[in-house]
């Protein structure tokens, strides 16, 4: 039940789920949908930005013009970045969430 505790009640949520503000996708934390996660290896990354281009959630973090990690609060674990990564020794690999918890 942790996903529902502390969220607004029926008297204060917008009617019928209407979204009254534009550009609010960042407020919706979709990371808990994930069953697998991409792991980024900085040393193997060639900074081609393909993962950034293809990520459907804007979850590839760019800092000072360079790929610098993954936003796990929003990453749904679709794996598109991993399949697009062109390096021979992949800079992105996919592991399950249970593997991530164990490691």
């Amino acid at each position, binding site marked *: 039940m942790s*996903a*529902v505790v502390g*969220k*607004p*009640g*029926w008297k204060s*949520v917008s*009617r*019928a*789920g*209407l*979204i*009254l503000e*534009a550009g609010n996708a960042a407020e919706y934390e979709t990371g808990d949908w994930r069953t697998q996660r991409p792991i980024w290896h900085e040393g193997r990354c060639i900074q081609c930005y393909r993962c950034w281009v293809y990520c459907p959630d804007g979850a590839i973090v760019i800092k000072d013009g360079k790929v610098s990690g993954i936003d796990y609060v929003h990453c749904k674990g679709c794996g598109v970045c991993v399949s697009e990564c062109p390096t021979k020794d992949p800079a992105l690999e996919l592991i399950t969430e249970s593997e991530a918890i164990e490691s």
Partner: protein
Amino acid sequence: MTGNEAVAFALKQIDPDVIAAYPITPQTDIVQYFSSFVADGAVKTEFVTVESEHSAMSATVGAAAAGARAMTATAANGLALMWEILYIAASNRLPIVMPVVNRALSGPINIHCDHSDTMGARDSGWIQLYSENAQEAYDNMFQALRIAEHPDVLLPVMVCLDGFIISHALENLVVNEDELVKNFIGAYKPQYPLLDVDNPVTVGPIDMYDFYFEHKRQQSEAMKNAQEVILAVAREYEQKTGRSYGLFEEYRMDDAEVAVLVMSSAAGTAKAAVDELREQGHKVGLVKLRVFRPFPHEKLAGALQHLKALAVMDRAESFSTMGGPLFNEVRSALYGAGGGPLVRDFIFGLGGRDIGVAEIVEIFKKTLETAAAGKVDEMVCYLGVRE
């Protein structure tokens, strides 16, 4: 006017922004008459001819979300084809008004009256008003609009009238002046229209386990609020027209010991049966339910409490093996209310099977026997079915 003409005339006086509709017997006349108003330039309505009822309700939902006063009309299998979108209209809180000309839902295929179509849609989140005659169908149209658009409600409303019996029968009725209708319904001011480009809004986004339940709870509250709004709108309508409406009508109920509860056109026939039995000295009465959703359980239980026995007349079968939908709601409203009458169910009139005064007198006689015996021997009867 026929019932369908009366409803089409009400639509003309309302002059909605959008009507999207598909013809189906016995609703066809409504759309046909209305299309001639459009062709003659008597209304400003954008009339959308669609390829199915699923599309009719979808287009109506889209128009309502855009901020239009949007309507459609249907019956039976057409209503069934709208099913998915009925729920979407209600859960998006769109104040759509839809006349439904009650017809048996197949099969075997049948075009005549019963309530199996709208009874099936009873849990879709729509308010349901049932009309005894053409006058009530006409009057309900304007009231439905005010109820639907009330800020404490914002739910779609079905205005139900009996197929052929009311939709195609000629009756005298009193119509309102155009100016009265205009003042009564007022201008529609949608709160979050999609077409307000300066204030963009997303309608109908995905609603997961963390918020869906809260929005359903809002819908329940809106339906609860509807009861008082229905009464307030009826009071205002009576002030303007002199014709009075409520949640249900009580006929010769004050000292009644046995009563029949029924909806729609059969109530008119039942009044004649009550008069006949009263002349013979029987203390009988009638309750005609107008509002099925929200179900006025407390007020209804209060009105029925003093009876010894009650017969509910269901023009639909629920296949629960314990009676029709109206019976189950009424008996549930009485259960736990303390005391109350013995309750029997009479399923009648399916597929347009005619019901006359003699049949309803028979129902009263059986229910008078139940009152005398102090127990219910046969809970559910199928009236007039050949063995």
